[in-house]
């Protein structure tokens, strides 16, 4: 179907997509993580464009980052230094981990885009003073962006933006639910392509195409034979490897949900309407499932993963980590223990720039799926 081609086209060549948009006169603001308030960028009349890593052939970034820095950070800088991101009017760095923190410094000192914003978010998300501070930094970002782009970011524009993004989040969640209800109606790679491209695609256009995809899947639902695939949840940070879904499916599994910041953490929870839209955006970040670089209690992430497994009736969990991602690596032993205690089979896969060889992966997944 043609809508899906559109998503794949963006993934294949995000640079051309960004440049074409720029030529049409759009202002584009690049961003790094799911704590970026896209609503504010959109309300400024600009386009929020998520920056992903260049997967291989890191060359320029090696002059700035050691080999023990994760491939997301090295690959993102590589793209910028190679000139791939010349269409950006600026870049936004919400504070998360130590590596992204230094990426922001090095980007500011070497890429030198027209606009550079740090959103020094609180690290703890479970206190009143952190909430007040979160609102303060988001307001500051609104002011900085407005002044740079010479626009007014009014509350009305923000409320409109919140509406658009709530719709997008709800649509993506609906797609995940449809997949979880009947995994064969859409392949894991297709769903991955849609969600990932959604973070780069023109959002007005996106609100038109997502309902068409949903409608198509709603029609297919129940018509196909129930899938024999064993239901699997993926957990980790960023997933930049669509092949993983296909290999799992070929090994007899089906990815029916995830706890990724390029997945469910991106769309979970709506911004609840509020007299003060910035406070409402902040409130979502305080309640949404957290990134391990943030603190919302010492068991929160383990409990959330268990909840996902139970609610989605999954048989097993695959932890999918980027090598050198410290926050995830620290949480792994306890989250694994949570699963082990409930008798939920799990395995861990750590990836650097590229996936291990397909044969090796297939064997690992086949062994794992057999256990489920």
């Amino acid at each position, binding site marked *: 179907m043609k809508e899906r081609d559109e998503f794949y086209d963006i993934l294949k060549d995000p640079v051309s997509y960004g440049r074409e948009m720029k030529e049409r006169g759009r202002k584009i603001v690049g961003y790094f993580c799911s704590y970026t308030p896209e609503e504010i960028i959109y309300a400024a009349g600009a386009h929020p464009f998520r920056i992903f890593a260049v997967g291989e052939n890191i060359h320029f970034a090696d002059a700035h980052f050691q080999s023990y820095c994760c491939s997301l950070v090295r690959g993102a800088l590589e793209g910028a230094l190679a000139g791939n991101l010349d269409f950006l009017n600026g870049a936004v760095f919400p504070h998360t981990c*130590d590596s992204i923190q230094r990426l922001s*410094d090095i980007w500011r000192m070497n890429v030198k885009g027209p606009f550079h914003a740090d959103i*020094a978010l*609180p690290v703890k998300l479970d206190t009143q003073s952190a909430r007040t501070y979160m609102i303060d930094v988001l307001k500051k970002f609104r002011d900085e962006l407005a002044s740079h782009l010479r626009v007014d970011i009014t509350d009305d524009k923000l409320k409109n933006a919140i509406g658009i993004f709530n719709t997008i989040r709800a649509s993506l969640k609906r797609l995940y639910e449809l997949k979880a209800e009947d995994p064969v109606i859409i392949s894991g790679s297709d769903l991955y392509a849609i969600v990932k491209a959604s973070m780069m695609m023109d959002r007005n256009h996106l609100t038109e195409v997502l309902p068409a995809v949903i409608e198509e899947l709603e029609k297919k639902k129940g018509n196909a034979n129930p899938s024999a695939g064993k239901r699997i949840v993926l957990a980790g940070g960023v997933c930049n490897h669509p092949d993983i879904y296909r290999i799992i499916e070929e090994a007899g599994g089906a990815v029916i949900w995830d706890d990724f910041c390029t997945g469910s953490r991106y769309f979970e929870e709506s911004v609840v309407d509020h007299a003060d839209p910035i406070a409402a955006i902040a409130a979502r970040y305080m309640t949404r499932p957290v990134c391990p670089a943030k603190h919302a209690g010492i068991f929160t992430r383990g409990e959330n993963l268990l909840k996902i497994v139970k609610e989605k009736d999954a048989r097993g969990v695959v932890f999918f980590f980027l*090598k050198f991602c410290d926050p995830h*690596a620290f949480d792994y032993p306890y989250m694994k223990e949570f699963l082990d205690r409930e008798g939920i089979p799990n395995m861990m896969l750590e990836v650097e720039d590229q996936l291990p060889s397909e044969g090796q992966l297939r064997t690992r997944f086949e062994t794992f799926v057999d256990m489920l």
Partner: protein
Amino acid sequence: MNKMPEIVLFFLAKIKKLALHFKKKKKMKEIMMVYYMEAKSARISGRKVAWITSGGPVEPLIAMDVIPVYPENHGAMIGASKMGTDLCEKAESMGYSSDLCSYARSDIACATVNGGPIGGLPRPDMLICCNNICGTVLKWYEVQARYFNVPLFIFDTPFCHVGYAEEAGRYVRRQLDEYVLFLEKACGRKMDSDHLKDVGKLSLEGQRLWQAVLATTANSPAPMTAFDAFYHLALIVTLRGTPLVIDYYTQLLEKMKDRVARGIGAIPNEKYRLLWDNIPIWPRTRWLSEKLASHNACLVADTYTSAWCGTTKYIDENNFFDSMAEAYTRIYLNIGVDEMARTVLEMVDTYKVDGIVMHSNRSCKPYSLGQYDIQKIVEKEKGIPCLMIEADMVDERSFSESQISTRIDAFMEIIKQQKGA
């Protein structure tokens, strides 16, 4: 409460006597021994123990008579006694990746086996985690909060990419009040704010003395090396805010001034002066110090030990409590790479160094990522060479002696040529 058994009373009396004895002599080893003995016997003496991060605000703990214990200092001790690799491997068998911070790995493993050079740290009654040094401590302290099942206070100091933001100042200041409330609840009594003021004054005085001690190495020859500073550092980290620190550094300062006056250098024949960047390679400090001395090179200063006195300019001595919000937020590791580079450039001038040795430390991303840029800036602005050594502060598996030795030789050749042997 049960009556304390005879043996315990005997033990306590012994410690007191030892403490009195050492108060007169003030040798580092003994001070640290008494400190750890007091901490380990806290349960019987009825005092509370808090584990706190190395850059954390310790003054409120001292004012509440809580014994602060520093897992990072413990990590350094584990590293220096070459027990790190075993403990790191133990952590890896518990599921922690070998890429994680080796202080954290050693400490997490040590807590479960009471291993290491002092048989493990005393059990904490509470955990105080200040993230001004890294995000790793947040995850590490979460692990320990789950393991020990004790309250965790997170003192969140927003990163200062370019300066100190007003809203960050308000947030950190509010957390100071939350911190005091947390301590009052944990200890079951009120904070004595007059006492806290006194502790604050002692802390500032200690930091200024430490700065003065480090500043003596601006002299040629330097009366002490950065390796000595790594050793003397323990007190400003662990006992900041107590009179002990003042006494110790006052004496040390006198000794250093005397050496300067008499022209005595730390190494026999100081010809080249170097600056060290990053946390020491604890298990190999002696090797490295001998290696450099063999080239008549002296590590005269470092960016690491000066981190415990680098923010005195933000402290208001008449209002320590309010001003420590800014001081604790703007420490060396919580600022942008460009500001770090400016600090390094200043040190190059102050200490008149001929080159920089940078430890690219696999364990410490906030310290190490950005070093390549600092290296380029220094080489460009000052025209002095920088050597990058890839290693780890505790885990010896990341240390390749022959390779590092060859690189130091080559580096020293360049310096000798530049300076004219």
